């Protein structure tokens, strides 16, 4: 059955043949508008179209009026994504009636700086990286933060100091371009838990920072962070489980063990044997980060056929 989709952040980074599709490019330009000065904090469709015409070659031959329906449709989608909201109306200066006034949400600045970080100019790129770091730190700030927010905030700060944060930014872009379902910014931040990188040094450094940050937390806080990650992975597993009934039984039995996750394993020897196993959460996460496409994240022995290492664990 075809899955239904709500509008996802991925539409802003939709690619075909190695390039962003036209619609994605337009979303990106609109989001860059949010960074182009304090007077753009609120805007009308007309103001946005005028800016597009004056600043982007591809629109310079079009009239402001002819751009309005196209830009209007994009703004509607950005409203659905909670990146833009309507804050009121104002009279139309050249005619009678009212026009909507919009404002960007904080997430749109994050995405705007993410797009700005594509810049080949190192000064602009570094400025964008710094801005992204500050926005993330602010997003994770709260009077009563959860353990996960405290952990991620510390981890990201360490990554910035150690020069690994740029790789996290690249990974966030990769996530957005991957076509994976990403509902909103909190979902995106959660998915950074899946960080992986082809470079051995980068992963080693990341693992080291992860471990260092985790063990500095109080024991209870470590349990809460692990439990949150367990739930995150098991939810992903549930959405992909081939035998849901089997999965939920094993998941139920493992519900109290915060440091274990239940994952699907398939036997390469018999091809048919699908099992659900409790896996050590930390080991799984560390292995995944090194994971290279085509090579299994983790292998175990198949109990049915007694084949050594033939039971391969799903890569979530």
């Amino acid at each position: 059955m075809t899955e239904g989709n709500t509008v996802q952040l991925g539409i802003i980074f939709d690619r075909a043949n190695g390039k962003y599709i036209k619609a994605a490019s337009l979303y990106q330009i609109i989001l860059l508008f949010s960074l182009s000065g304090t007077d753009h904090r609120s805007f009308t469709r007309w103001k946005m179209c005028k800016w597009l015409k004056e600043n982007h070659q591809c629109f310079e031959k079009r009239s402001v009026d002819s751009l309005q329906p196209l830009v209007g449709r994009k703004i509607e989608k950005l409203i659905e994504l909670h990146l833009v909201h309507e804050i009121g109306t104002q009279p139309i200066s050249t005619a009678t009636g009212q026009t909507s006034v919009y404002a960007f949400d904080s997430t749109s600045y994050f995405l705007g700086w993410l797009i700005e970080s594509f810049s080949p100019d190192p000064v602009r790129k570094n400025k964008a990286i710094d801005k992204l770091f500050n926005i993330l730190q602010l997003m994770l700030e709260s009077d009563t933060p959860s353990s996960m927010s405290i952990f991620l905030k510390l981890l990201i700060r360490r990554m910035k100091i150690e020069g690994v944060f740029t790789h996290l930014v690249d990974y966030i872009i990769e996530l957005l371009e991957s076509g994976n379902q990403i509902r909103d910014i909190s979902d995106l931040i959660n998915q950074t838990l899946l960080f992986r990188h082809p470079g051995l040094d980068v992963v080693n450094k990341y693992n080291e920072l992860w471990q260092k940050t985790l063990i500095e937390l109080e024991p209870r806080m470590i349990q809460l962070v692990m439990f949150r990650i367990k739930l995150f992975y098991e939810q992903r597993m549930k959405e992909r489980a081939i035998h849901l009934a089997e999965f939920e039984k094993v998941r139920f039995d493992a519900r109290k063990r915060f440091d274990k996750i239940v994952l699907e394993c398939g036997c390469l020897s018999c091809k048919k044997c699908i099992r659900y196993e409790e896996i050590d959460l930390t080991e799984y996460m560390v292995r995944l980060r090194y994971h290279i496409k085509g090579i299994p994240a983790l292998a175990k022995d198949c109990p049915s056929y007694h084949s050594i290492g033939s039971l391969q664990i799903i890569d979530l």
Partner: protein
Amino acid sequence: MATGILFQRDRKGRLKSHAKIFRDILRFSLNLEECNQFSQKELAAWLASNCSAFEFNPGTPTKTKPYKVLREIGPLLGPLVELGLIYQIGSEPEKNGTSEFAIWKYPVAGRLLALIIDSIDLEHRIQSNHKIYEILRLHHSSNKSSKHQFFLQLLTIYHQHDRLDDLTEIITEALEKLDYIPVKDLTDIYEIVSITHFTDEKARVFISNWKSALNNLDPSTKNLFLYDIKLVYEELMANHKDLGDPSLFEGYRFDLRGDPEETALQARCIKCNIVQNLSYKTSNLSIRSLNNKPLDIKCPNPKCGLDNCLVVPIFVNPFDTL
């Protein structure tokens, strides 16, 4: 994108023309054999004769009407694709022409929704309800997860009590009201009912049947089903933008993780604003109507002490995340 697009009405309460077209695009599936594919041209020809939303100038030749419809339906298929109610499987070249026509298919969810819409028509109701029952029964019988076992029980109870009418009416009402859930799986049909506010006699029957279905499950399946519900609601709570104290909540949730019967929630007093964790019977969660009614609990703040004053954010708007 949500199923509400099939129910949009104008100020006078009349169905909007695009809602009529969406409905008729789905209803076309009822004229096809199960799993049959069709071309966009065939769909357009059928709509030209059967959909009242298309208006033609007097004297428009019958032959040209489908082409006019064909031009208009293109953009309308996108929302139905997004909802998982129709999908494209390919295209075929036009006979004696240069253009191509898309080839489409309806997934089971599309056919089911077509039948639900068809059941609004009193003349078709009995026949449609019977088909809805058969589709859902087959769907749940072929899946062994606790959720499917539960919904099979629920469906069977409605069928045995000869109240399928009620069930389809409640589903229709839920589909019409919700503006944030896409139908991506048949089981969503029930889930949207269980989290929708409805208060009349049909709701009373639904709640009673829900409880009976739960009690009909064997203890281990019941635990699995309740645990699944618990996880869903606790996750909604943890990500809710109005969660008063995330650090207080996560610890409470962690401590309750072993008990499928109890779900961790957090409430706020509407008078003194104090935030309090509380456990709620999981079996009552799904049947609680979302009417923003404060919980029947006294405020723990001794200086406040107001009765019935605790509001749980996910009971107000469950999907309001950060």
